[in-house]
């Protein structure tokens, strides 16, 4: 699938960078602050060393777009308490394995012999449920709108196949309302948002319209290749400088303005909005998904009587401020000292797309 454009695609990055630099130089007085919402963007920016290509006056802050990082500690503790049960198999995407709960992690549970299986698709969790009729197979439903439709489909299928031992611990969240909280923040005073390409594939452009319209922030949707990210940033800069905030998709191959209707219907059918607690951001009304009563037989929190206990953040962790873009990871006093990927204190350090982990892994503290 390597096309002749592959070469172009890499050559275009410095040119985009040049254009962005020129643009900001020209609009000399203007310093621009943009939040990349999506953790995959955060990682791509670090991994490809893109910050070095941005003008000094272009400030990029990382947002709350890592579903692992924003998962509340009480939810991680709940997942762990399920893994501790003899009658359960926890099935999870690899992303969740190392996240520290209040006292342990799923990885440590597994090392103690508990049954924690890494899956690359929720369908594998369905298969596990079928193969282990005497166990509850509990799938950890984490992720935003991109990931939630697969969970929805699995629930529909489990119901159809009468796999009553397939349960979902539903922690899915939705992006737009969290953005509203950020757009609304006076502390932050953002000029624009680099919007997540793959969430947008599902939800389309409309759910973001309030951002330029109500809050006057520039928006571009971008894919995850360096040239796509740079193009998105350039587009945002142009909107800001022109004073014409809008939403532009730089990812038209994948993102339809209306999103993926089938996926949206699946979400509607299986989930209903609920208030959700975002680590760092606090409770955001109606920003989470909960399993509808029609599927409650598969709802792990009901079936296994999971009570969420509010749990304090580990002392000193400033994940919350990192997730809100208020500080950069290196401003956290624990960063690189008490908190490293080997012994992460907060989830931002453990999730491979957490801002702290990306900073530590790809930049640390300006060694290069």
């Amino acid at each position, binding site marked *: 699938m390597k096309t002749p454009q592959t070469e172009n695609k890499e050559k275009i990055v410095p040119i985009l960078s040049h254009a962005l630099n020129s643009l900001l130089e020209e609009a000399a007085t203007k310093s621009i602050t943009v939040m990349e919402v999506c953790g995959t963007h955060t990682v791509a920016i670090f991994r490809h*060393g893109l910050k*070095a290509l941005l003008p000094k006056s272009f400030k990029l802050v990382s947002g709350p777009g890592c579903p692992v990082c924003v998962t509340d500690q009480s939810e991680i503790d709940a997942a762990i308490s399920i893994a501790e049960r003899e009658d359960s198999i926890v099935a999870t995407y690899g992303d969740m394995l190392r996240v520290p709960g209040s006292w342990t992690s799923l990885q440590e549970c597994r090392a103690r012999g508990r049954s924690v299986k890494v899956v690359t698709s929720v369908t594998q969790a369905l298969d596990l449920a079928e193969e282990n009729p005497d166990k509850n197979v509990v799938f950890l439903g984490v992720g935003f709108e991109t990931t939630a439709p697969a969970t929805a489909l699995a629930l529909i299928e489990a119901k159809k196949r009468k796999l009553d031992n397939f349960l979902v611990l539903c922690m899915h969240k939705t992006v737009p309302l969290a953005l509203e909280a950020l757009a609304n923040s006076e502390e932050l005073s953002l000029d624009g948002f680099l919007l997540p390409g793959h969430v947008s594939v599902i939800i389309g452009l409309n759910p973001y319209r309030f951002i330029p319209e109500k809050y006057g922030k520039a928006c571009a949707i971008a894919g995850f290749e360096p040239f796509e990210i740079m193009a998105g940033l350039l587009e945002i800069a142009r909107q800001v400088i022109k004073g014409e905030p809008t939403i532009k998709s730089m990812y038209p191959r994948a993102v339809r303005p209306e999103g993926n209707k089938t996926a949206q219907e699946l979400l509607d059918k299986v989930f209903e909005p609920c208030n959700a607690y975002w680590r760092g951001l606090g409770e955001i009304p109606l920003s989470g998904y909960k399993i509808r009563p029609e599927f409650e037989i598969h709802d792990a929190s009901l079936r296994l009587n999971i009570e969420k206990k509010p749990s304090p953040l580990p002392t000193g962790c400033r994940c919350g401020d990192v997730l809100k873009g208020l500080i950069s990871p290196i401003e956290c006093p624990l960063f690189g000292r008490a908190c490293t990927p080997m012994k992460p204190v907060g989830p931002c350090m453990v999730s491979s797309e957490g801002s702290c982990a990306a900073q530590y892994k790809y930049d640390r503290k300006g060694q290069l």
Partner: protein
Amino acid sequence: MEKLHIGHGTGGRLTSEIISEILRPFQKTSSSPYLEDCAIVDGNIAVTIDGYTVSPRTFPGGDIGKLAICGSVNDLAMRGAKPKFIAMGLIAEEGLDKNELLSYMESAANTCAELSIQLVTGDTKVLPKGQVDGLYITTCAIGTPPLDREPLGMVRLVPGDVLIVTTEIGQHEATIAAARYGLTVPSLKSDCAPLWPLVEQIIEMKGIKCMRDCTRGGLGTVLCEWAESTSLGIDIYEEKIPISSEVSSICDILGFDPLYLACEGCAVIAVAPEDAEKVLSKLKAHELGKKAQIIGQITEEHKGYVGMNTKAGGKRLVDMPVGEMLPRIC
């Protein structure tokens, strides 16, 4: 009560940490300033040991038998030592098919024959079902380094030394990962191969400083070990690193970084700059080195760290991986 977990065995930061703890009590009688994969003792005996626990045991490009010979023999080759003898310890699970076991022995024996290596001693344990995942092999390889040159090792690295990778990286672990996560890649196979025949082509060149096969933890981990152990900087160029489209795609799909994928027939070689082109062309003339590339150099900058100049024109740190490489969706 800290427990071991998978991360301690994946070749990155946690592995170095646990190894240094394991070595501490032995410091009474042992003392090597740098941790090479192969020791040279009594003046002229090169010796190395490694355990092989690969799953699946048979994979495109090899099997656990071939791997158990290649892996240890390569550690000798990396210090310039010609492999001569193998000691092999088997730990097998009750219920393992005997013919399957013998087929691995056949592979191992073929690799030994290819290199004129003798199996000189061995051991076989059979444990109850469920205490071994089929078969683990530990091999100890013994050989002799050339007498007429300084021994290879990190201690010889200096700024300016050029880094050459002998072939496309990550082929072995990508092959294993594909099998494990249900990806079909007909054109992919492990690079599992004995490197001595390649090393033999270049070992007389005095400019060769240090070599390392990029096994567990991959190229990235080897470079970090070099930078950290020597307190020198390393600079590499993303676009120079040989990588197949198979490995690229697998990494995209599973969210892996190819720099950290284990190789079993790929080495990184540090060469004095004046000899670099000559070494490269000798490597390229050999079947196992056709895809060799200069990927970077040792530098005085950013001491102790590895920096990568990215294709996109940026620059970033290459750190050791932490823990197990897990497929991810984020």
